[in-house]
Structures are given as structure tokens and as C-alpha cells.
């Protein structure tokens, strides 16, 4: 279980998070909702160690992830799908996947398994990542993160700007990962897409936790959505 306790973080002198608490459990999807600028992406980056943790603790099982330098975080099998995909644009599909295999020394088996999930990528192994379509790029970003054989998967707006068929495909992958026992943290703008897959929903407001609810209760009482998101 990934436990986030009272974390504070920000960009340089600009503080963004003022005490966030979250728990991502294996086999569950935790969804972060909040208005633009609430700090959702900042939470993800802070977990990955890409932003300095000024206060609070992040632990995975018994490991103090928050105390590690950024490059050691993924070695504890935390896979990250950043906002805007952030592929290595001039590397080929195969090389992007190779980068995903590196942190945990994952072997050929992992590579095959991931490519089986996304057959489209297998056809384009030698193609430069920047020349893929938006949907294929997102597949590659997810495939690269899955190469770590992650225990925790962080997905930052994975369906942003994609056509509906692609959104479905990616949603299926996320549900499949949940079924395989991964703890998934998902940042997503489409509330409808979230409610159908999430187990828990955490609202974030101005860098603080507002409320964490089960998705089921939110489905039956959408008034909260209106309150926090204005939708």
C-alpha cells in the first residue's frame, strides 16, 4: 500500500501542496479530482521525487519513498505515466520501452507481456515515438510504465485529447491492472470516465484534501461533484 501523509511540496518558492493525505491500496483505483491548479499533478510529481518533499511522509509498504532521490523511486516499482505522455520523442518505440525496462532490470518476458497488451506498438517498434498518433503515444507511455512491473501505477490524465475508442482501450487497460492487484492513482478530468472505474475518489482543493469518498457513494449522490468541481 502506498501511503501519503500530510505532504507539503511546491515549485521553488511557490508552495502548492499544504498537507495531502492519501492511501492507494492494491487492487483499487484511487482517483484524484479537483479544479485546475488544485495540485493533482504536483501530488504525482512529489510521489516520484521530482519535486522536493518539504514536509510529510510517503511510504510504500515499509519503505520511506519520500526520503529517496528521484531516480531510486521507480526502482521500488512505481510506474509513472506523466501528463502529456512525456515520451522520449526522438527515441524509437523499442528504445522507449527499453528505458522502461531499465530501472528494475525487467527481462524479455516483461517486454513481451507489455507488447502483447499493445500489439499496435509491436508493429511500430522501430518508429520514432514522436511520429506516433496521439493514442499510440499514450499506449507507449503506459507500456513504458508497465515495463517496471509496477506495484503502484500513477496515471496523470491518460485519456486527455484522445478519441473515444482509444479512451475505452486505455480504460480497459487500467481496469485490467486493477484486477492484477496494482494500486492505481488516477488523475482525470472526465468525471464520467472516473466514476465508472474508480473505487475511491479524493477531492483536492487548493493543495489540501477536501474529502475522500467511495466512488459508489458519489455515483448515488453527485451533488459533491457539483460542489467541488462546479460540474
Amino acid at each position, binding site marked *: 500500500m502506498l501511503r501519503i501523509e500530510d505532504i507539503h511540496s511546491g515549485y521553488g518558492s511557490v508552495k502548492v501542496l499544504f498537507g495531502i493525505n492519501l492511501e492507494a491500496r492494491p487492487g483499487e483505483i484511487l482517483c484524484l479530482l479537483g479544479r485546475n491548479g488544485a495540485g493533482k499533478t504536483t501530488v504525482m510529481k512529489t510521489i516520484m*521525487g521530482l519535486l522536493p518533499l518539504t514536509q510529510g511522509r510517503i511510504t510504500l509498504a515499509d519503505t520511506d519513498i519520500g526520503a529517496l*532521490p*528521484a531516480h*531510486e523511486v521507480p*526502482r521500488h516499482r512505481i510506474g509513472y505515466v506523466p501528463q502529456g505522455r512525456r515520451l522520449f520523442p*526522438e*527515441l524509437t518505440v523499442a*528504445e522507449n520501452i*527499453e*528505458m522502461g525496462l531499465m530501472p528494475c532490470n525487467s527481462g524479455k518476458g516483461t517486454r513481451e507481456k507489455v507488447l502483447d497488451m499493445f500489439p499496435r506498438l509491436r508493429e511500430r517498434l522501430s518508429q520514432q515515438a514522436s511520429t506516433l498518433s496521439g493514442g499510440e503515444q499514450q499506449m507507449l507511455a503506459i507500456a513504458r510504465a508497465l515495463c517496471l512491473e509496477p506495484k503502484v501505477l500513477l496515471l496523470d490524465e491518460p485519456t486527455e485529447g484522445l478519441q473515444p475508442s482509444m479512451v475505452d482501450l486505455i480504460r480497459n487497460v487500467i481496469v485490467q491492472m486493477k484486477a492484477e492487484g496494482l494500486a492505481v492513482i488516477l488523475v482525470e478530468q472526465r468525471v464520467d470516465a472516473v466514476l465508472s472505474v474508480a473505487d475511491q475518489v479524493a477531492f483536492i482543493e487548493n493543495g489540501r484534501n477536501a474529502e475522500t469518498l467511495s466512488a459508489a457513494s458519489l455515483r448515488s449522490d453527485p451533488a459533491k461533484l457539483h460542489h467541488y468541481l462546479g460540474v
Partner: protein
Amino acid sequence: MEFGPHLILASLEGAVTAAILSLTAIGLSIVFGVMRVVNVAHGEFFMLGAVFAWYISQFLGTHPALGFVAAILIAPLLVGTLAAGLDRLILQRIDYNPERTIVATIGILYILQQGTLMTFGPDARPVAPPFNQVIAIPWFEFTDAGFEIYWPWGLGITSYKLFIIFAAAVVLAGVWLLMTRTKFGLIMRATQQDRETAQAFGVPVDKVFAYVFGLGAALAAVGAVLVVPVQQAHYLMGFDPLLLSFIVVIIGGLGSLPGTVIAAVLIGMTDGIISVFFSPTLAKIIATLAVAMVLVFRPRGLMGK
């Protein structure tokens, strides 16, 4: 003066310049490409390579070939280690902030230059080439007796200069293989394209930067070890390679390795040919003009993105 044989000679001399220049400029280009650091001290790493080569060969005091082999193995290693240490000690502490790295590398330039002056003195130090046969340049003519090959008087190049061209080509091929075929090359390219995401996939960026800075400096040192048997080691010799490397890297496109090699060949060959037929000053004027033209018409360089 016959044009043909002189053109061959000028081209060969130009190719020697181009060979050394490509090694030095590739080092600058890799450092800029991966780390976004404009390394003003690059010429001093070149100079240190040359001075170390002299020191090593005279310290061993045996056959020039043995000294040369020792120098080409040890000098770049020493220079690379020193550069990696300076990266960790200075550049890392200022977070690779662009303006500060320029000021910091200017500081490194003077420290290395004056440190060399204080340690090794102001004299220019010759190093004996490992081998140095003169090879006459052949030419042909059609006489009454038919086609005839002859060797114009006084025109020749040494076997060592040809070796410089060959050795530089081998090292460049090695750099190319390192960048495209090895795990370290993949990590370097990934870091170059997206530093933050590379970290999220386990790349220890600080460590990679230290290696890259060391590699860049070591490449300049290899160029210097190769050139020192024809050019003498001296504590002020770093300025020209620095200037020419910047010219080459700007023309080729910052961070583009093929562009850098193409520009080095272009500038080196023009330099050789114009220097022989006109004057070295004109060659520099033309190189600078080329930079101006590239900046006006192709601001990102020949192969820049």
C-alpha cells in the same frame, strides 16, 4: 607552382585540422546537447590533454611510440576524471543554471590555464611523433612519352599526419557507436530529450552529467594528444580550439553530432586550403563569415532542430 599537387597537399592539411576539430567540437557538442551547458573551459581541457601528453612522454623518456601510446591512454582519462570532478564540485552546486555555468566555466578556464602555467611553466613543449616518415605527394603529367607519374619536389606529408586523420575517424566512429548502440548512449539520449522523465525511469541524472562532462573533456584531450606531435604543448594553446569548436558547433547545429562533424570537415578543409593558397587570416575571416551567414539564414545550424 602547380595547382594540382598543391591542392592535394592543402586538402590533406585541411583534413588534419578537420580531424582534430571534429574531436574537440564533438566533445563540446555532447556536453551542450545533453547538459545544456555552454562550456567555455573546453579549450583548456584540450590544452591539458596536450600538456599531460608532453609530461607523460618525457616522464617515461623511452621510445616516442611508447610515450605516445601511454599518453593517448592516460591523458584523456586524467582530463576526463578532472572534468567529472569539476562538474560535481562546481556545476552541480549551481544547478546547471545557464548564466551561472557560463561564468563558472570562465572561472575554470582561468584556473586551469594559470594552474598549468604555475605547474609546468610558460615554455612550448615539443613531443616527438611516434613515427614520422615523409610521404611524397605524387602527381601525373602527359608528356611525349605518354602518361607519367612523378613526385613534385618538396611536396610531402608525414605518415603521422595521415595517422591523425585515421585515428580521429576511428574515435568518431566509436563515439557514434557509444551513442547509438550502448545502454549508456541510450541513457544519454533519453536524458538529453527529457531530463525529468528520465529520472522517473531511474536515470541518476547527476551521475550521467558527470560522465558526460568527463567524456566531452576527454574527447578534446584525445584531439590534443593527437595534435601535440605536430603542434607543441603550451598553456595558452586552448583558445583557438575553443573558438573554432564554437564556430563548428554553431554551424552544425547545437547538440547535433552529425551536424558537428559535417561543419568540422567544412571549416577544417576551408581552413587548410585557404591557408595554403591565400592566408590563414583569410581562412578565419571566411569561417567567421560562415557563422554569420548560418545565424542569419539557418539560426539553428545546418542540422539543428
